[in-house]
């Protein structure tokens, strides 16, 4: 049996809207995953360091401040450079649909908009983990 998925849930930048991040962190925890919630005010460097040090499989980013393109590009690049293994990056928040293809090009595997059931997010992560 595989060890439990290790998930970092992070709030990049100065955005304080953390209701979604907390809900998703709780859903991962309730699904038996090992969750590290960083809290707010995280820089790219802080998030990358947490993922590497915690040997996380998954990084969930929550952004409601319009900085999703900036942080997705930077964080995905840093993870490719510094993480020893492939990390699944998923995102939630207020993301205008035209930005989604750009986020995927940066390396974000999925963008979960407002209204997404947490069960769908958990299932996405679980299937990815099982397929590895």
């Amino acid at each position, binding site marked *: 049996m595989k060890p439990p998925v290790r998930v970092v849930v992070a709030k990049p930048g*100065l955005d*304080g809207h953390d*209701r979604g991040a907390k809900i998703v962190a709780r859903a991962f925890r309730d699904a038996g995953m090992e969750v590290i919630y960083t809290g707010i005010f995280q820089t790219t460097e802080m998030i990358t360091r947490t993922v590497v040090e915690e040997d996380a499989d998954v990084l969930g980013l929550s952004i409601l401040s*319009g900085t999703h393109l900036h942080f997705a590009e930077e964080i995905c690049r840093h993870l490719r450079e510094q993480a020893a293994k492939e990390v699944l990056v998923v995102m939630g928040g207020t993301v205008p649909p035209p930005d989604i293809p750009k986020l995927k090009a940066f390396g974000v595997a999925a963008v979960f908009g*407002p209204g997404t059931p947490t069960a769908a997010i958990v299932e996405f992560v679980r299937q990815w983990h099982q397929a590895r």
Partner: protein
Amino acid sequence: MDPKDDSNPPKASADQSTWQSTTLAASLRKVPVRQDAFTTLSGLPIKELYTAEDVAGIDPARDIGFPGEYPYTRGVHPTMYRARPWTIRQVAGFGTAEDTNGRFKYLLEHGETGLSTDFDLPTLLGYDSDHPVAVPEIGKIGVAVDTVDDVHLLMKDIPLDQVSTSYTVNASAFVLMGMYEVVAKSQGVRLEQITGTCQNDILKEYTAQNEYIYPPAPAVQLVVDTMEYAATMMPRYNPVSVSGYHIRDAGATAVQELAFTLAAGHCYVTEAAKRGLAPDFVAPRVSFFWDIQNDFFEEICKLRAARRLWARIMKDWVGAKDPRSWMMRAHCQTAGVSLTALQPDNNIARTAIQALAAILGGTQSLHTNSKDEAYQIPSEGAIKIAVRTQQILALETRVADVVDPLGGSYYVESLTTRLEEESEALIRRLLDRGGMVQSIEDGFIQQQIADSSAAFQQAVEANREHIVGVNIHVEPEAPLPFDQFVLDPGLAERQINRTQGIRRSRPQAEVGSALKEVEAAARGGKNVMPAVVRAVNAHATVGEICDCLRGVFGGYRGPLVY
């Protein structure tokens, strides 16, 4: 229907229990109710019927009274909207000061009657635009302000003695308030004429919105500084708008929103009293800001309960004697968190119904959300519908023509009382466990909100709670029915260039001296506002002034609670 049912009508019941055992019981045998239990959005039970028995404990003279009189259950003004409709106050802010000034003018042209400003995250957190953490955030969720020069541009052509303006800023509010004063004076407005509001409610930042700089205790003292300064210098200015909005949008129930907000107001007034400022000196200018969610009656009752409980807290707990101290004056905003990304046109209906609840609840001003805000800063077309919604309510529906039209309703009076009792009990619990600051530092309030938020999410996912377009009446995704809002990609560079140009050309010696005075005031436990105004006048930046106090108070990270 079988016509024979009407041929033998049930006998009129003498009381409710007779009705329940005869007419109601017979009906339930034929047509059972559609769910086991009915509750408000906040989980309070809803009975099938409310009668005089449910309001037997309510003393009309003591608990309901008349509008414009203690305990203000029916409204803070005797005439309410018959004299003057509520203020249509849409919050706006993005890009540079020029961009937001343009949006202000667009809103005023379309009939908005008051202004409200959102600032970008660097401004809210006391970073200048050229700080490394600021650069990606410049102008994204509000207007970028670094110096008083930005505020001059922001308020250009807006007569500050005629249009009341609200600033949605908290941790750095003391700086923005100083800038507002300087700009108003430069327009020729006398200090005693300056109207407007600063949100400046730092306590809910630690529990809900998370835009804080300093530890809670000194941050509360900064709020008291602004209360003292405004009461002394700008008596028509509201230095604090104690906010339930963010608490509710973060997931709290109506009871928690009431309790944590009124407890915060109580905290500011009692902390001021500890510094020798009488409640009647500061409390008349404490205002409030509420979230208006989807449970129509609960939200109306929430506003009525807030007025009554605030009046009682101020009069009986704090000992305020000036009736203006007892009045819970409010701004309301329809619930941003209730907007759906799916089928966004439906948000127009949600917002209209929430707006109606705010009006029937007796708000003084109102922001209606735009249908596209689950995605972006509102587009012009969407925000115009939001303004028009308020105008339709004010001009076509006649709901503004009578004061507190739902007063006396068995259900409304009963639920008002229930909300008051539940929230008063929670406030007392907070005070018993050490008060607001203690309950922030140990995460008690954050845990309460997170638990309510999680319970709602579980109800939605289990389909016990319905959201049209999200978990019921779902449609395939369609093209979005609004224009994409696009920020000028050059705005960050423009903002940074302006601020750096000002830093080079300002009176350097005066800036340095004023900043030293700010720091000395904070270190000496003196009111920082006179020194802050001096620094602002010398074109000191938001970041520089906030840094002075970082040196004195330190930073803060709240407990990780989820």
